[in-house]
């Protein structure tokens, strides 16, 4: 039987021999990224959103639950979780790939879109 933990991947950012990145630098990029400073090591569990396939670094301090799609039985990121709450649809990307691949192979479709 699969557990939710079995869906988790692994991230290592090792700055033991590096100046790392500062909070100010990450903030200046306008993007979300972990801040791992000089001499520090980050090891974290990760998940992949089943609907958009973005990687998410799990924050052990988070107190509210992670989004989950009970149709495809996978974790979702917060954005896709919100969309699913609104319309209730499962948009599993791998299932879409399966469908597109069959259509491409049968000649029913010649392009992805």
């Amino acid at each position, binding site marked *: 039987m699969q557990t939710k933990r079995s869906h988790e991947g692994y991230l290592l950012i*090792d700055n033991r021999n590096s100046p790392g*990145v500062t909070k100010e630098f990450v903030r200046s990029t306008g993007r979300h990224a972990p801040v791992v400073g000089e001499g520090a090591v980050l090891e974290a569990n990760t998940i992949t959103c089943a609907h958009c396939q973005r990687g998410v670094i799990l924050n052990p301090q988070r107190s509210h639950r992670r989004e989950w799609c009970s149709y495809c039985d996978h974790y979702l990121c917060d954005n896709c979780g919100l969309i699913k709450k609104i319309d209730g649809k499962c948009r599993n990307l791998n299932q879409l790939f399966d469908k597109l691949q069959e259509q491409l192979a049968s000649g029913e479709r010649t392009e992805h879109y």
Partner: protein
Amino acid sequence: MARWSVNVPTWTPVAVADTTNFTDAGHMSFQGGSSTQRINVLEVYMGGQAGASSPSIMLLARDSTVGVTLSVGRFAALDPATAALAAPPVAFNTATTKPQRSATLSLLNLSFNAFGGIVRWVYSPGEEVGMLGNTASFGEMSLSAFTGGTPGLLGSHFIVEPF
């Protein structure tokens, strides 16, 4: 299916904005070998090789414009007994028509300092990022630098599983 390594031993990313042509040798891209090929990405690794502090905003992203006329890069099976692929995917960092990173389909932000920093992202089995075909936007993926920072020399690899 068998696992393969796409790797570039040493390269310096050139920072570009989304939907802007990549610079030859300033990115690491990977394109499907046929219009129906499925590929899973299992691991992304970067090891910094710069000689001075080089904070870099590295993105793993799908490409909204795929490269054309590619100069083939390193693509090696992890197991020596692996059979050759009929339509091998293409690793490349040089192309006549330059690929462009999608503005919306970036998958990982792996900001790090190329002065000795190491980043390794491993997907759990069954949770890998997938690719389909060899056209935009599902058929090509790239590791590249976003604008900002001072990208420095690094070595990188993807572990992938073509089907």
